[in-house]
């Protein structure tokens, strides 16, 4: 793939509005940003990308603010028709990506770097390791903000594109697009290293509540139950037996570890409901929630209890690493 003058061309060319046509929707493709805050007391959950850091990296590579709306792709990606050139970036799990130009020539599209595409068909295929990837486009996906966010609330049926996953025939509106002519895909000679280590290579860390059952979680292996979704990752394994009565409903959060009567723990994720009655075992620390987003049905996983202080240190380290990566991207884009 040839390189081009990578200096931002956006300023000197006029901007236009356009939309991508969804030719095939993929397994579960939703518009997500950082999610919504401030409405949990009315039963509205956060939603948002399951890996906000990957979404932020993809956004910055196309020159967007970190919180612009992206597409969250699950397992199998969508086929999208681009009526005009656009800069895109893919982060998260590595996904098979092909581009078919107007002359029906097919180009392989790399992940983890910005790619300028001419008009044509973007065919996102299988994710072979991991489960989810995030696609950013310059200008962002310009769906209306609902309750302060462009994220899709799948359970509430609002936000994102018509409150649901994308379907064939949908038009995905984009923010302002810089116009430039382009004949074939072009990418710079640099890229960011995506974390391709299996998400279950090390234990998922959690802060345990002060009950025995909370520590039982770490004493055995679990598998990801096929009923897992954006609301919760369900674990299956030898049931945790605990004499815990259901409590009157209390608030829950993304990360909350619940123990239903069947003894099979659930980790709540971004689409978590706002209150729940199951006993609580603790919470998965926020730095490890994106790893859960990459686990598939049947994958093995283990848990490890850590202290709240250790969780704070992990988060600070992660935040610093992300800030450095974002700066490095900005720097690269400016240098061209």
């Amino acid at each position, binding site marked *: 793939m040839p390189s081009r003058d990578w200096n931002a061309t956006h300023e000197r060319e006029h901007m236009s509005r356009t939309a991508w046509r969804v030719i095939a929707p993929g397994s579960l493709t939703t518009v997500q940003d950082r999610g919504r805050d401030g409405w*949990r007391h009315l*039963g509205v959950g956060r939603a948002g990308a399951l890996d906000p850091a990957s979404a932020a990296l993809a956004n910055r590579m196309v020159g967007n603010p970190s919180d612009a709306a992206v597409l969250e792709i699950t397992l199998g990606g969508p086929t999208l028709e681009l009526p005009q050139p656009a800069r895109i970036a893919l982060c998260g799990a590595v996904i098979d990506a092909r581009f078919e130009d107007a002359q029906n020539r097919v180009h392989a599209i790399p992940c983890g770097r910005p790619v300028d595409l001419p008009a044509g068909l973007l065919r996102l295929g299988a994710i072979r390791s991991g489960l989810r990837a995030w696609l950013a486009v310059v200008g962002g996906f310009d769906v209306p903000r609902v*309750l302060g966010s462009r994220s899709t609330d799948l359970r509430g049926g609002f936000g994102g594109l018509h409150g649901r996953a994308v379907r064939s025939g949908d038009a995905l509106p984009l923010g302002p697009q810089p116009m430039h002519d382009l004949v074939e895909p072009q990418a710079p000679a640099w890229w960011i290293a995506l974390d391709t280590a299996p998400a279950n290579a090390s234990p998922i860390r959690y802060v345990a*509540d002060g009950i025995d059952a909370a520590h039982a979680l770490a004493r055995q292996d679990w598998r990801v139950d096929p009923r897992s979704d954006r609301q919760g990752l369900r674990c299956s394994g030898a049931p945790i037996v605990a004499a815990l009565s259901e409590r009157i409903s209390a608030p829950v959060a*993304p990360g909350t570890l619940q123990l239903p009567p069947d003894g099979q723990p659930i980790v709540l994720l971004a689409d978590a409901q706002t209150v729940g009655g199951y006993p609580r075992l603790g*919470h998965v620390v926020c730095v490890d929630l994106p790893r859960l987003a990459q686990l598939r049905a049947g994958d093995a996983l283990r848990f490890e209890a850590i202290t709240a202080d250790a969780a*704070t240190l992990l*988060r600070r380290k992660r935040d610093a690493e992300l800030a450095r990566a974002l700066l490095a991207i900005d720097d690269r884009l400016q240098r061209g």
Partner: protein
Amino acid sequence: MSDSKVGPRPDIRFELLADDAWLIAFDTPDASIIDPETNARVHALAECIRTAAPGWLRDLVPAYATLAVFFDLGTTDAQAVRDWLGTQCVDDVADAQADASRAIEIPVRYGGAFGEDLDAAAAELGIAADTLIARHGAALYTVAMIGFAPGFPYLSGLDPSLALPRLATPRTRVPAGSVAIGGAQTGIYPRESPGGWRLLGRTPIRLFDPQRASPSLLAPGDRVRFIAIDDDAFARLERDA
């Protein structure tokens, strides 16, 4: 408020709910029973924190006997939030909260196709359907919390004689607006969803609309009354909605 710094309250407990959230749990006479007085204190503390409006506050979720406080990790940390919370709102302000509550009337068409379980529920309780309707409509309810789905109010204040167990097998589709009893509570399904509560009737009023500036008709702590309406009123109100 700043002059009432007497340190952590003995009657509340802090639990870390997430890296970015504290759960404040109130001592309550029996943790498995809904206690209206405890719930009033939850709403009072929520109101106090909301009024103080610290810059790091992202979400404030009152429930029956607990209050979740979500904070912005970009501007504060868990310890600082806990220290601040421990010095807030020591006075019992439940009375002021009750005065401030709005009393909202919810029109309901009881029975028939609108409330499929009404007759069976009345039979199970050993009372006439009209009696069930009258008792359900006589009470002044409090929105103890909102959850399950956006805008779904859990209402406390149900006449204890109307408590009904949930269905053994939940329905896969409960119509939007359904007014129902589940255990010792009553509630309203804002949109079509699965559900196991016993359906008494339906309201034509739209409880939740994310496009409205104030998306939920009801807020935690609000007071609610049900008003029985007939088919004509239902049709008219449904048109207006």
